[in-house]
């Protein structure tokens, strides 16, 4: 060993209170210029592991390790004063969402300068501002002198994340730890940030990347550690782990990633016996008048400062029975507003939506109410869509149409359909996991036997394995009841996996629409091409 590894971790254990062990023995080493990725779903302990490397595992955490050294220096029994000298100077840390990871009330420049002040780097104020501007330039922020004086909310998502990275690189630390650095970003912005991190690594920094996104990890990592419930289930060189995963869990994770390849197949192993279902998707029937038709939808909002913002500028599309239309676009493209107009929760300023050929958004609410049973919605965050005081049973029972006969039996049937056991009847939504809540939301949505279900980013907040189960459930329901979906998402993989046709939106306009393979494999318009190019691919084709 010519020189000791930059960071060496041997049998790291972290527990909160008696017997609640969150990290059960993790070992790895990190060298300068290399990137180690720690992959796992929520609750796998990957964040706690990262934070214990800088002594911030959390209040009341008990951190033990046989060996925890940085550049040969033992960190296990470091007093807090010493830790403060390490954080920022030797090890930089980047958190997930810059909007909440930067102090909203202080200019971005001062947040970056804070690190300099703490470690006594730049003496005078001018020296500090120069240093900050140089840092912002290095991370690719345009007009750094102007941006330094602005508040976080005045910067774009990408610029904010770059400023956050600049803050962690202020003292040129040898090791940079990034916990989900791009999760909150749009695909195109994510690509640029990943380039920045790769460039930083190329300049000789060691990088530890924490992520639940296998595609991102496969692009960046040299070595990979896969964690599950606090234990390392697999580790090794990135190409080896991705090409021939040794552990069953890793294989299942890789399979669960929806993409064009997984179209028409099941993402998750069928946990419960499913009624016999044709594997092939039923071909959508193109009856002469489509189930749902949107013509020239326009919607304008008045911003708090009085100026007018046009969210949707003339979007038209149609949805036929048994078909899934995917709407994809980045945040701010207006896709959610379209969804709300289709649900008639927002009235369009121009244009209208027809349901079964009849006027829908044009109707007054009183008349429209009795037709609402034909169309329902599934939200991204199901929790806020349930009345906190109600149990699951009451939520579903209340959504049954008035004329439903034997309601109790119908509720049991619906729970079964979304594979939730009877025990869940008396539980409250707050007590359920993210996946279970979404199943209840879906049960409520299908209660009135609707023809159309609008899904507004239903799976983007879920872990990959849970996301896979929900997507399979939606697929099964479509086959069983011939439901048409209007599926809104920013994740191209999900869209490709589930949609028959796709509509690409940008800045409130429909830039391109058509068959899913035509659009996503052979995009014509510039914006779609950039979008498709920016999506990180699993670099190594999965061995059959």
């Amino acid at each position, binding site marked *: 060993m010519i020189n000791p590894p930059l960071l060496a971790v041997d049998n790291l254990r972290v527990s909160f209170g008696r017997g609640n062990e969150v990290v059960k023995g993790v070992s790895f080493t990190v060298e300068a210029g290399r990137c180690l990725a720690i992959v796992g779903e929520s609750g796998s302990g990957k964040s706690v592991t990262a934070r214990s490397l800088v002594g911030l595992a959390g209040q009341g955490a008990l951190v033990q390790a046989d060996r925890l050294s940085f550049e040969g220096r033992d960190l296990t029994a470091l007093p807090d004063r010493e830790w403060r000298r390490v954080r920022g100077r030797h090890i930089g840390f980047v958190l997930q969402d810059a909007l909440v990871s930067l102090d909203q009330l202080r200019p971005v420049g001062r947040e970056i300068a804070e690190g300099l002040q703490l470690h006594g780097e730049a003496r005078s104020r001018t020296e500090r501002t120069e240093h900050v501007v140089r840092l912002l330039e290095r991370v690719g922020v345009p007009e750094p002198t102007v941006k330094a004086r602005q508040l976080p909310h005045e910067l774009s998502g990408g610029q904010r994340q770059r400023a956050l990275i600049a803050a962690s690189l202020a003292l040129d630390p040898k090791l940079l730890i990034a916990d989900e650095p791009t999760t909150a970003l749009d695909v195109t912005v994510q690509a640029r940030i990943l380039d920045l991190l790769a460039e930083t690594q190329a300049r000789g920094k060691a990088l530890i990347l924490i992520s639940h996104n296998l595609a991102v990890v496969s692009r960046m990592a040299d070595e990979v550690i896969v964690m599950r419930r606090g234990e390392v289930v697999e580790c090794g060189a990135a190409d080896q782990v991705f090409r021939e995963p040794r552990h069953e869990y890793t294989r299942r994770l890789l399979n669960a990633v929806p993409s064009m390849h997984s179209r028409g197949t099941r993402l998750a192993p069928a946990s419960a016996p499913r009624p016999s279902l044709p594997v092939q998707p039923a071909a959508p029937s193109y009856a002469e008048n489509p189930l749902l038709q949107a013509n020239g939808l326009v919607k304008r909002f008045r911003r708090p400062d009085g100026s007018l913002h046009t969210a949707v500028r003339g979007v038209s599309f149609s949805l036929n029975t048994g078909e899934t239309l995917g709407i994809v676009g980045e945040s701010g493209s207006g896709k959610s507003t379209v969804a709300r107009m289709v*649900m008639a*929760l927002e009235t369009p300023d121009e244009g209208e939506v027809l349901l079964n050929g009849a006027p829908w958004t044009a109707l007054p609410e009183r008349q429209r*109410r*009795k*037709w*609402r*049973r034909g169309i*329902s*919605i599934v*939200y991204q*965050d199901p929790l*806020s*869509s*349930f*009345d*906190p*005081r109600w149990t699951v049973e009451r939520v579903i029972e*209340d*959504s049954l149409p008035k004329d439903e006969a034997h309601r109790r039996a119908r509720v049991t049937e619906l729970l079964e359909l979304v594979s939730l056991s009877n025990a869940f009847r008396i539980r409250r939504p*707050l007590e359920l996991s993210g996946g279970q809540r979404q199943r209840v939301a879906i049960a*409520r949505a299908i209660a*009135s036997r609707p023809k159309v279900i609008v899904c507004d980013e239903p799976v983007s907040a879920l872990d990959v394995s849970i996301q896979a189960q929900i997507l399979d459930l939606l697929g099964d329901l479509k086959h069983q009841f011939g439901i048409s979906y209007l599926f809104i998402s920013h994740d191209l993989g999900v869209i490709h996996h589930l949609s028959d046709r796709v509509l690409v939106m940008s800045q409130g306009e429909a830039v391109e629409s058509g068959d899913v393979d035509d659009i996503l494999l052979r995009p014509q318009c510039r914006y779609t091409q950039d979008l498709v190019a920016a999506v990180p691919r699993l670099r190594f084709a999965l061995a059959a």
Partner: protein
Amino acid sequence: MSSTSTITGTRLGFSGDFRRRLTYVVTFVTSIPVSVYVAAFILGGFVLAALAPGVLRTHDPFRTDLFSTLQAPSLSHIFGTDQSGRDVFSRVVQGTAQSMAIGVGATTLSMSIALTLGIAAGLGGRMADSLISRFLEVMFAFPNLFLALLFVTIFDATTATLIVAVGVGTAPGYARMIRGQFLAVRRAGYVEAATALGHSWQRIVRQHIFPNAMRPLVVMITLGLGQSIVWASGLAFLGLGVAPPSPEWGALLDAGRDYVVNAWWLEVMPGFAIIVFALSVTVIGQHLQDRLEGRFHPV
């Protein structure tokens, strides 16, 4: 709190449902902090003093004894005696009924005003909202003191006028809170989801908006009780309280003010009663709020 989970359903073989409810109750009981129990105990004492003063009183609160005036707290007179030999502890106990009547009365009045205004502003249209908000601002600009002085001077000081004076004075604050609560719940996710299900506005208001918006009301009432009593005693302090020889806490404070140098207990004990009452009510209110807000985020 000894661990009680073992004695629940498992050994006694109750049905699942009952066992579940029993453990739910047991965990519920053990989760309440000790301070809430203490507060509940004290409040119970005050309620007893209000309903049946005879039980707690050691002497006749109105009996003067010219040979034992201004005696320091002792075994025979727990809170000492006042300037005409009356037992201060008995007078505080006797005064509880009147003070609490003022507290409860004022809170009920202010809550009813606040509810009507708050709901009208919260659920009514934009017109109603801006009109009522403007009116509330006028009420806020009025110093509460003036409203109280006004009532008491026109209708001379009785418990009723004090209730009206304090009630009207505190109503605007609660009205604004209720309005905010209704506006927030109106924008909640589950209200929109119910609209999507095709429920009528009346059904949504009945099923979702009212129950969720009214929940923090419980907390407001407990906080209101404490504030009203402090307010009423303030008025008595300015000589606008109820007529002597009433032992209402505010009147006791007013009478004891000049003796504070030589007979501190005349001033300290009634003040102490007011604070302990208001404190116990607030602690219970605070706990209710944590329990309700903590677990359920209405919006």
